[in-house]
Structures are given as structure tokens and as C-alpha cells.
């Protein structure tokens, strides 16, 4: 009886849930163990559970930088790719925020003819695969001289990110209500003062959620970057893809994989404190 009570409505985990959480932790984190080992391996053949030869044993004899020596050297382009990824992600986020804020405001507050059609069009990029537009976009960009340029990639990244950003911002705008802005106006604040002193700070959870998602989506995009970067602009996903396209991972590929996870982990640690999960919910509440 007592047990049943606990299960019925307690806010505690059931035994199944405890087990499930352990499985999930294994599922998410488990694969990183061989990844880390591989990044230090020189030769690691089946069926060895640990590398037969470690990178450090061979380091002096090697004809070229191996494993972490290669990954951390400028030759690997890891640094360049990281800087590119973060740079593009940041610019895309800033632009996306700047153009989505006013639009989200209109969408949340105003009624106009064609609004629902517009909203539908807005979510199309979420369902039309990148593959369907990548090559055509490349042809357009080659003509415009934007292929292989930062401008081109940033523009292209705006396509799949705008829908996320607009959704999140529209949701918070709807929750915000006009009261605050009107109150500020009555108290004598100008349009700009209202935006700067009242609207933006109050939208912050949504802005953070939207910006985080935009940044994530941008830094995760492979196909568009790959097509439009033309090898000239390397980002972490395209760099890694080139390393693992064949379906095997050597030590340097493992090292690069680890590096590719770093910005995400750092972002996670920094942002987790500012994230209000509810803010995401609004964006996906449909």
C-alpha cells in the first residue's frame, strides 16, 4: 500500500525511471569513452580493448604530427574552423535577432490579412530539407559572387534559423502583454527608451532561448555550409565530415571530434544558468 502511494503521485522517481536515467546517461556519454581513447591511439586494431600502440610511444618517430599533435597544430584547421563556426553562429544570431524582433512583435500583436499564410510560409524552412535548396542556392550564390564567402554562408544560415527565432520571440511577446510598454509610454518614455529599458530586458528569457537555438542550429548546419562554403570556409561540422566521410576514425579524427564537441559543452555550461526551459516550451507549443 505504502509503495502504491509513493508511485501514485509522488514527485519521486519510480525504479523504472531510475534505471531509465542510468541507461540514458550511458547512451549519451558512453560513446565518448572510446572516442577519448582513440584520440590517444597510434594503432588500435580489433579486438584490442586498448590501443596496441599509443600515440605518445610513436610521437618522436613520426614523419608528421600525429593525433593530438596534428589536431592542435594549425595544419588541422581546427582553430580556423572553430573561429569560423563561432563567428558565423554569432553573426547569424545577432542578425536573426535583429530582424526577427520587430517581425515577432507584429506577429504577436497585430492582425493583418494574409497573416496565417505568412506564418505558414515562415515555418516552411523547418520542413523543406536543406538538401532541396542547397545546390540551387549555390548556383544563385556563384552568380552573385557569394559562394565561398562569409556573407553567403551567413545569409544561407538565416533560412533555417529564422523560423526558430520567430517562434520563440513571438511566444514571449504574446506572454509579455502591451501593458508594460504602454505604461512606459505614459510615463514619458520615447519609442527607443521603451525598447531599450523595458521591452528588451523583459523579453530576455525568450531572447536567450531564441538566440541559443539559432546559434545551435547555425553551428550544427552541415549541408548548406558544405555546399556554399566551397571548401573555402571550413566550419566544425564540415571539417569533421571530411575526416569521417569514409566511415572510419583515426586518432586525429577522434581528436577533432572531441574538439568539435567543446564549443557546445562550453555553451551549455555558460547558458544553462540563464536558460528558462519554459521559454522553449512556448516556442514549441504550436
Amino acid at each position, binding site marked *: 500500500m505504502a509503495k502504491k502511494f509513493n508511485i501514485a503521485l509522488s514527485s519521486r522517481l519510480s525504479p523504472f525511471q531510475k534505471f531509465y536515467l542510468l541507461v540514458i546517461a550511458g547512451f549519451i556519454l558512453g560513446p565518448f569513452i572510446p572516442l577519448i581513447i582513440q584520440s590517444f591511439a597510434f594503432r588500435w586494431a580489433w579486438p584490442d580493448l586498448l590501443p596496441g600502440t599509443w600515440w605518445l610511444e610513436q610521437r618522436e618517430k613520426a614523419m*608528421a604530427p600525429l593525433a593530438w599533435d596534428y589536431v592542435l*597544430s594549425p595544419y588541422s584547421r581546427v582553430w580556423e574552423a572553430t573561429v569560423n563556426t563561432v563567428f558565423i553562429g554569432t553573426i547569424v544570431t545577432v542578425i536573426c535577432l535583429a530582424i526577427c524582433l520587430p517581425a515577432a512583435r507584429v506577429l504577436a500583436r497585430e492582425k493583418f490579412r494574409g497573416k496565417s499564410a505568412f506564418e505558414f510560409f515562415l515555418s516552411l524552412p523547418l520542413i523543406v530539407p536543406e538538401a532541396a535548396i542547397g545546390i540551387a542556392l*549555390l548556383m544563385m550564390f556563384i552568380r552573385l559572387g557569394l*559562394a565561398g564567402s562569409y556573407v553567403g554562408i551567413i545569409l544561407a544560415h538565416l533560412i533555417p534559423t529564422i523560423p526558430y527565432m520567430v517562434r520563440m520571440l513571438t511566444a514571449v511577446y504574446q506572454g509579455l502583454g502591451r501593458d508594460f510598454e504602454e505604461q512606459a509610454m505614459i510615463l514619458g518614455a520615447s519609442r527607443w527608451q521603451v525598447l531599450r529599458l523595458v521591452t528588451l530586458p523583459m523579453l530576455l528569457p525568450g531572447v536567450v532561448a531564441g538566440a541559443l537555438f539559432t546559434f545551435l542550429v547555425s553551428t550544427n548546419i552541415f549541408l548548406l555550409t558544405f555546399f556554399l562554403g566551397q571548401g573555402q570556409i571550413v566550419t566544425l561540422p564540415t571539417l569533421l565530415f*571530411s575526416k569521417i566521410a569514409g566511415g572510419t576514425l583515426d586518432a586525429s579524427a577522434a581528436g577533432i571530434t572531441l574538439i568539435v564537441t567543446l564549443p557546445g559543452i562550453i555553451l551549455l555550461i555558460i547558458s544553462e544558468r540563464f536558460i528558462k526551459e519554459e521559454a522553449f516550451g512556448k516556442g514549441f507549443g504550436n
Partner: protein
Amino acid sequence: DTAQFREAFLAGEVDWAAVEAQAKDEGSVNLYYWGGSDLLNVWMDRVVAPALESQGVELNPVRITSTKDAVDLVLAEQNSGASEGSVDMIWLNGENFATLKRQDALFGSFAPLLPNAANLEWNPEDERSVLNLRDFGVETGGAEIPWSGEQYVCAYNADRVAAEDVPSTFEALRSYLEENPGKFTYIKPPHYIGNTFVQEAIYAHNPDGTGAEPFQQSSDQIPAAELARLITPGMEYLRDLEPLLLDAAGGSPRYPEDNAALDGLFLNGEVDFSCTFGLYAVATGLATGSYPEAAQQFIFPEGHMIKNKNYLAIPVNAPHPAASLVLANWMTSVEAQASKLQQTGMPSGIDSWKLDEAGAKAIAEASPGLVGVEQDALDANAAPDTNATLVDVIEATWLEYIERDSSDPIETIVARAYENLAK
């Protein structure tokens, strides 16, 4: 501007000093190359870039995953009407060169005009010039310059295969696989390494016994039906081999996408043999840990080990033509070739008999060495590439007949491929 420079240079009106001066003005050069090899990437940054720097040119090494990407870019830019594109030089060979040539997208016959052209045999009378003048049977016309020479060599894992079991013919390979099913696979066409394996099988099964010879002609010269007749035994052999390939027991045979994937299978003992373009692949593979410790090269298939070169080409709309020429020239220097050989294991692309003694010695000393085979044996079993136009057909036939398991006879498939090609 660049077009004027091109004409003047090709007409021989620009002396090398002027080229070098203009290269300095242009300031940089965009080299597009397959960036899948760490060793090559390091060499580019560590050796090529500083060498060009010293000539006042900044190297922009663009690493691509597929050479076709660079070709696409050149053609798209050419078609957009702009006189300048973004690609100065592409590392390529075979079909991609043929494509650029067909589309008139090449800079022109620059190669013989370079100072280091002296390191190469241009005399058509000399049989040894063939790989400098023809690329997959297509005349280079000096529009690309040889960069590396390669031969298709297989390796086995001596820990898993006894020396006496190592096959040297396709029949022996099949026998081996009948004993050890699933222990072999080849890279999936249309990857050029996979194509090459298919070509060797076709040479070896040439019903006329003439090996590579008939495949030197272009598709214009050889009728579809004739080609079909010539390749049928080889294709049949490959189809029969399928059930013995890796994972075939699980339903469908598995063909790896590239040689990194094949190396991985080889290292883990999933396959016992690994065939690739790589005279020194075993030596470098051992040095990087990507090959099993007991890897040995062997002669296979006897008499049909395709040997070829790969090249550097300059597109017609190269934005930095002079710098490209300077780069091409440096790449064909002894210094470049020796360090490339030493640091990446890529064989020299220049002709040793054209070099002075010191040069020849430098190249020889740079070699990482063969493992388990002798150079003489390799030379003795060398075979030429297939003509680029036929490669397309053979590739299409493989995709139809082997991969898609088409029930159409090979003749029909080849005829269809010919039609498509004509479009």
C-alpha cells in the same frame, strides 16, 4: 588583365621573370585539392606555403572532399560570364580533367612552358612520355602538369594470411575467398580507386587476351557492342565475386566509400587485403598506425597493375594565373617532389631520367620504401589506365550490372551508357 596575360604567356611572350613579378603582384593563389590526407595537408602548410611565401605568393590551400566540387565551381563561374573565377589550380586527373577540357575551361598549354618542364619527358617518341601526354587516354595538351605518379598495389595482413595463400591472379583471389568468405572488398565505384579495381578485372578477363590495349581508345573509336564484348567476362567475374565479399553473408556485399574506410577494415582484420593507389601506402600506413603491423605488399593482379599519374591543372578563369604558374613550376621541382615523397609517401611525379644525378638521388633517398615487393616486379606488371570516356561507361555498367543487379544484358547497359554520354 588575366585574359591578356594568359594569351601572352601561352604565346611565349612573357618571360619567367615577368611571370614571377606578376605573381608577386597577384599576391596569392587558390589551390583546390582533396583534403582527405593529414600528411598532405601538413605538407601543404608546412612546406608549400613557405616556399611560395619566399616568392611573394601566399598559398591558399582549399581542402575539398571531392574534386568534382572544384570542377563544378569552375564551370559554374565560367557560365556566369565573369572572366575571373575563384579557382587557380586543381589537383585532378582522369574524368575531371576530361570534363574541364570538354568544357573549354582550361588555361591552355602552360606545362611545357614552365622552367621545371625540363624535369619531365615531353618527347612523344619516347614511350615513357605517355603519362605526361595522356591522362586516362585523354591528351593533356600541356593543360595540366604531372604532380605524382601512382600504381595500384594491394597489401595483405601477414598475421592473417599465410604467404603461400596470397593470390596473384583474380582466380586465386576467388579461391582464397571461397576458403575465407567475406575477407575482401574493394572501394565502391564511381570512386576512382574502385573504378581502377574494376578496370584491372576487365583487363585480366579481356576475352581477346589483349589486356589493357583496346581500352586505350576513346568511345568514338570503339563501338558499344565491341566494348560490351570486351568487358563482359570481367563484369561477370565481379558479379560472381559478390557473394564472397565483405558482409555478403548478411545479405548484401559492402563496398567502402573511400580508402580510409578500406584501411579501417584492413586494420581491424575485417578484410585480409587492401587494394589502393599507393606505391608507398604500406610504408606510410605503418608509420601512421593506420595499417596492421604485419601488412605486406604483393603483386596482384599479375600483369595488370594500373599505373598512372595525377596532375595540377589551371582553369581558364583562374584569378591569379601568374601565381598559379609559379606554383605549378615549384611543384615540379626536385625539392618539392622529394619533400612530398618523404613527408606524405606520394611518389614523385617527375621523371627521374630527366634529372641530374643529385636530383635523382634526392628523390631516391626520400622514398619511404616498398614493403614486400620490388620495384622491378611492379614495373614488370604495370598496365595503363582506361580511356576517360570508357571509364564513364564502365562505371555506369558496374552501377547497373553489379550494384543494381540489373537483369539487362551488359550489351544493353553499355549501349544505354553510350547514349547518355552522347547527350
